[in-house]
């Protein structure tokens, strides 16, 4: 199984790559020891979104399905978490049930929506249009739920002001449970990211991943090799959308609120920009690029949110025009080529003598 960590569908291999990855992980683990707690919480916030980006990388980059609906599943799972947590009285029972409900809701919605789209032979740009449409419909619907009649049990949807009152994720434990916040939240997210990243790497390099790439390249040819293309597409759509749902639950737990604006058009376009800028065909590029973009976006937002949004648009344009494969992936490829060239070059005679 571990052999699948390296393969044709993932950038980086060998001791140099894994050594560098280990150093980055160590730095991330050590960060809370010397950083301000506010910054640690902020980094945790960035990590929340990376699951959604990795899900899109899997669907779009590996399998060629551009879903504009990541925030649809993000929102469904976030609201699902909130409703169940509030109605079950929060605490370990409510929040753990909320986590499960959020993920199941996202997966089930993806299975139903994906089934009708994929078996209805909606593909290419129309796949993006339909997923965007359902996303906007959900955001619009939730925006008009301000009245008191819009409640599920004790949980008020609350229109554009958003749902509030859910606890952060809480593990069963002494004194009412172990609340997942601040530094603990940060470490749990790192653990989750490492696990998801490694599992997706193995998936990408497995026989399943080979078929996804074949479908991306030529779905008709893949079918003529005996692969049930639509079943693979549905499976990867459910998986990628469920990862968006995981981000939704984590986000709601982190902020203890969720609003329709985290689903609507600006939010829905963000995962596309992160993944396109990073390099949609590679998980490592997506992970690194999404983190960097989120960091940059928030740094700019402090001064002007409009400027940050314009810059995001400009980055997408620059990616499409100049580096269609993605900036981070492009830099990674360049580094790999330089390393290979250095290895191939014979050692100078003078240096050998010294």
């Amino acid at each position, binding site marked *: 199984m571990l052999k699948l960590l390296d393969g*044709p569908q993932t950038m980086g291999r060998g001791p140099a790559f894994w050594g560098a990855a280990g150093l980055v992980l160590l730095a991330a683990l050590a960060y809370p020891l010397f950083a301000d707690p506010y910054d640690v919480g902020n980094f945790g916030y960035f990590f929340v979104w990376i699951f959604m980006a990795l899900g899109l990388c899997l669907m779009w980059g590996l399998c060629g399905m551009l879903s504009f609906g990541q925030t649809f599943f993000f929102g469904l799972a976030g609201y699902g978490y909130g409703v169940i947590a509030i109605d079950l009285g929060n605490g370990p029972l409510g929040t753990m049930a909320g986590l499960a409900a959020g993920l199941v809701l996202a997966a089930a919605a993806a299975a139903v929506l994906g089934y009708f789209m994929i078996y209805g032979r909606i593909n290419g740009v129309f796949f993006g249009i339909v997923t965007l449409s359902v996303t906007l419909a959900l955001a619009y619907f939730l925006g008009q739920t301000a009245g008191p009649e819009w409640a599920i049990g004790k949980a008020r949807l609350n229109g554009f002001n958003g749902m509030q009152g859910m606890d952060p994720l809480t593990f069963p434990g002494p004194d009412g449970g172990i609340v997942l916040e601040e530094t603990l939240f940060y470490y749990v997210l790192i653990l989750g990211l490492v696990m998801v990243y490694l599992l997706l790497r193995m998936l990408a390099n497995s*026989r399943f991943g*080979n*078929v996804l*790439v*074949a479908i991306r*390249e*030529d779905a*008709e*040819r*893949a*079918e*003529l*090799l*005996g*692969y*049930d*293309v639509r079943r693979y597409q549905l499976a990867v759509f459910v998986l990628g959308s469920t990862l968006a749902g995981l981000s939704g639950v984590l986000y709601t737990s982190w902020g203890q609120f969720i609003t329709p604006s985290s689903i609507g058009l600006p939010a829905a376009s963000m995962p596309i920009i992160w993944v396109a800028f990073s390099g949609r065909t590679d998980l490592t590029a997506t992970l690194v690029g999404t983190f960097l973009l989120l960091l940059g976006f928030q740094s700019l937002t402090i001064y002007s949110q409009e400027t940050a949004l314009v810059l995001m648009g400009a980055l997408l344009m620059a990616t499409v025009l100049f580096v269609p494969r993605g900036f981070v992936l492009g830099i990674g490829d360049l580094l790999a080529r330089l390393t290979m060239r250095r290895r191939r070059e014979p050692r100078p005679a003078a240096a050998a003598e010294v």
Partner: protein
Amino acid sequence: MTTLLELQGVSRRFGGFLAVREVDLAVAAGEIHCLIGPNGAGKSTLFKLVVGRYEPSAGRIHFRGHDVTRDAPHSRVQRGMSIKMQAPSVFRALPVRQNLHIAMQHHVPPAELAREEERLLELLGLASEGARPAGELSHGQQQWLEIGMAVALKPTLLLLDEPTAGLSPEETFRTGELVQRLAAGGMTVLAVEHDMSFVKQIATRVTVLHLGQVFARGTVEEIVADPRVAEIYLGVPHAA
């Protein structure tokens, strides 16, 4: 000989146009069966009916004793068909070796994959091209690679739609040799083709289609000697 593929009264209508009309066809195990005919005869339509791209308007298709009339293409492939369409259809951005790997990964034990890839690359004359993106190969090499991908499935029946389209005479001859080698290994082949030199080189049995119907069938020698076939191909009326 066992009948591997059998079409019974297969028709296909497009609106008011009947492209294939009540075709009966049997392909026996071990033969190289060529389907020929002039342009518009319905060869490609019949091929797409066999592979599952089109559903027949009437008639049944049986493969290895199973009724596959309504089966999707991937189900037919899982039953033992393997298909090479007319235009080269390879994964252009992926290396040649990975193209073969994707084709054979479910048909060859993991420990033997690398060796089997090497064997096929040698067989296809692409041994030095394994790391190149398939899209950089010449047209002929892409045709061979696609045949290789079809062969990698270890099929019972290899279906080839105009495998020599766009090839030079030399490449056509080499393709014929490749098909003969595969058939010698026990593979049954059904090829749609209009290049008669290629048909003469490989076919053990020939079916001629004309205006969507079976016009003649027999061995290559019988078909070549049939003046009615010459007439529909060349427009030369035969002596009464």
